[in-house]
């Protein structure tokens, strides 16, 4: 029975998925009804996840561990899912006949990611990872209309399967040197053999799969196209929820080396610097808002990696915090995008012109989200960066903090350009005021409060993340 309780969030999401599977079999689609169901279900799912957030235990013959680390990420995943579901009221980017499948895939994907963060066995991890990937592979090409976006689906798929090929190859090497597929045993076994090429290469290649999910340079190549090509809601989901799982898994796997491999750290440093720099630089020249955010997400992957590459609990905690903050801020931005582009088209930066007049509240949410992403206090994004850099500097990587801050300055430029569009520019043509319903208002305020609260009062969250990070060791 206790086992059942431990698995409750996942079970609930399976239930949700099945429900929408059944819905998908119905003859006449009812998008509004589906949306209500989805919001309610995911909200209940969130509640359940939160309620079970302090559970601990092992399941499925030790393949599955429920602990603070996994539960925090499950809460984040559920939270992101609720938000995406909430914003799916403007799901115009997907044919209304496919909405049931859309919700089904989202639920499955969230479920897969929840299993991913809890899994402590390589095959389980791989299969969960593939399940979530497959759902996303399918969600991306669901975009209705414009054919030119369709290529993103096939690109995503090809890059995804290649990365997954690397990953399974890496897992095989880990299996070869560690003689086991259990992560806890690997943690014990690997540091001793980490100087063996197979061990470290296996680790790196396994990480490559997660880097792909996190869109870290050079596994980022799908991100701009997919962000641009997928419907707004799916992009939001990929940009927020799936990043959580990826971050969690990178934290888990980076810890496998036990800090015994300077080469790995060097590699991660190089990747994080490359990712930050590349993302920020290329974002400077973007016109499409979602594409810009894609590059920004590449840069943020670099920041998260800075926290991770310290390979100590402080760094991991900071990375968890950063991921959570990133979820909130990124969703703030995407929510506004979805509201503004309520017909589901791709928002160009200049289309934001006059947003402050069309909806001051949304504009404020958007602004805080952007500033959060840019790392300006008192938003959560700043505190996240602060923690990440603190961890890096504490470990002795002063230069990394400097490079990170310089990058943050570069990134500020394009965030400010977006901000300028929303607050300063006069619209070329008259856009209608945006209908903001009560729920959206509430959501905006919640997001604003969360962004600032996380930024100014990080104490509880930080201790929580630290407790979570400690469970990894």
């Amino acid at each position, binding site marked *: 029975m206790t086992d059942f309780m431990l698995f409750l969030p996942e079970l609930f999401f399976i239930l949700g998925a099945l429900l929408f599977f059944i819905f998908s079999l119905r003859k006449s689609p009812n998008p509004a009804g589906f949306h209500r169901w989805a919001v309610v279900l995911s909200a209940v799912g969130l509640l359940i996840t939160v309620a079970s957030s302090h559970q601990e235990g092992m399941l499925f013959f030790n393949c599955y561990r429920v602990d603070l680390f996994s539960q925090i990420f499950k809460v984040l995943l559920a939270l992101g899912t609720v938000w995406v579901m909430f914003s799916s009221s403007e799901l115009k980017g997907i044919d209304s006949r496919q909405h049931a499948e859309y919700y089904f895939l989202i639920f499955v994907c969230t479920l897969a990611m929840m299993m991913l963060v809890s899994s402590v066995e390589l095959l389980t991890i791989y299969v969960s990872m593939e399940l979530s990937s497959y759902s996303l592979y399918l969600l991306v090409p669901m975009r209705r209309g414009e054919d030119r976006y369709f290529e993103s689906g096939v690109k995503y798929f090809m890059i995804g*399967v290649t990365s997954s090929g690397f990953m399974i190859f890496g897992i095989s090497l880990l*299996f070869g040197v560690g003689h086991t597929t259990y992560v806890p045993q690997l943690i014990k076994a690997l540091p001793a053999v980490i100087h063996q090429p197979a061990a470290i290469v296996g680790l790196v290649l396994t990480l490559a799969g997660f880097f792909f999910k996190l869109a870290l340079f050079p596994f980022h190549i799908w991100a701009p196209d997919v962000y641009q090509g997928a419907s707004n809601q799916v992009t939001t989901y990929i940009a927020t929820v799936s990043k959580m799982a990826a971050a969690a898994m990178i934290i888990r796997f980076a810890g496998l080396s036990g800090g015994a491999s300077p080469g790995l750290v060097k590699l991660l440093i190089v990747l994080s610097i490359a990712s930050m720099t590349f993302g920020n630089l290329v974002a400077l020249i973007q016109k499409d808002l979602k594409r810009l955010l894609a590059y920004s997400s590449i840069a943020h992957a670099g920041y998260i990696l800075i926290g991770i590459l310290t390979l100590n609990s402080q760094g991991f905690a900071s990375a968890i915090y950063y991921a959570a903050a990133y979820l909130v801020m990124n969703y703030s931005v995407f929510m506004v995008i979805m509201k503004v582009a309520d017909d589901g088209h791709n928002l160009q930066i200049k289309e934001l012109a006059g947003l402050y007049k069309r909806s001051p509240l949304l504009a404020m949410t958007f602004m805080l989200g952007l500033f959060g992403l840019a790392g300006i206090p008192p938003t959560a994004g700043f505190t996240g960066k602060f923690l990440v850099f603190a961890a890096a500097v504490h470990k002795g990587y002063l230069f990394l903090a400097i490079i990170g801050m310089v990058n943050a300055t570069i990134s500020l430029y394009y965030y400010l350009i977006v901000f300028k569009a929303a607050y300063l520019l006069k619209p070329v043509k008259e856009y209608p005021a945006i209908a903001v319903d009560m729920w959206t208002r509430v959501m905006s305020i919640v997001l604003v409060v969360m962004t600032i609260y996380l930024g100014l009062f990080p104490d509880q969250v930080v201790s929580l993340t630290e407790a979570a990070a400690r469970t990894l060791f």
Partner: protein
Amino acid sequence: MNSLSTYLIISALLFSLGLLGILQRRNLIGMLISVELLLNAANLNFMAYNRFLVSDPVTGQVITLFVMGLAAAEAAIGLSIILALYRKMHSINIEAAQKMKG
């Protein structure tokens, strides 16, 4: 002959051939075929380790089985995406899909 490194080298070769296929084939189905080679290379690794190194002889085999299953699902999804692309673009050449860039 029947040593670990032989298998590992063969698997490396298969993996690299798969990579090569992915990197230079323009036919999307051709790329998908190459991906299958990647997975098979990994499977071969698993089986080899299972045979030569690992104490429990079952794990590797089970993993191989699951990877095969996943490969099947992957192929199904991949082919469906490719077919959808073909319906939209009347081509399954990856070079037809390079409008999004920058």
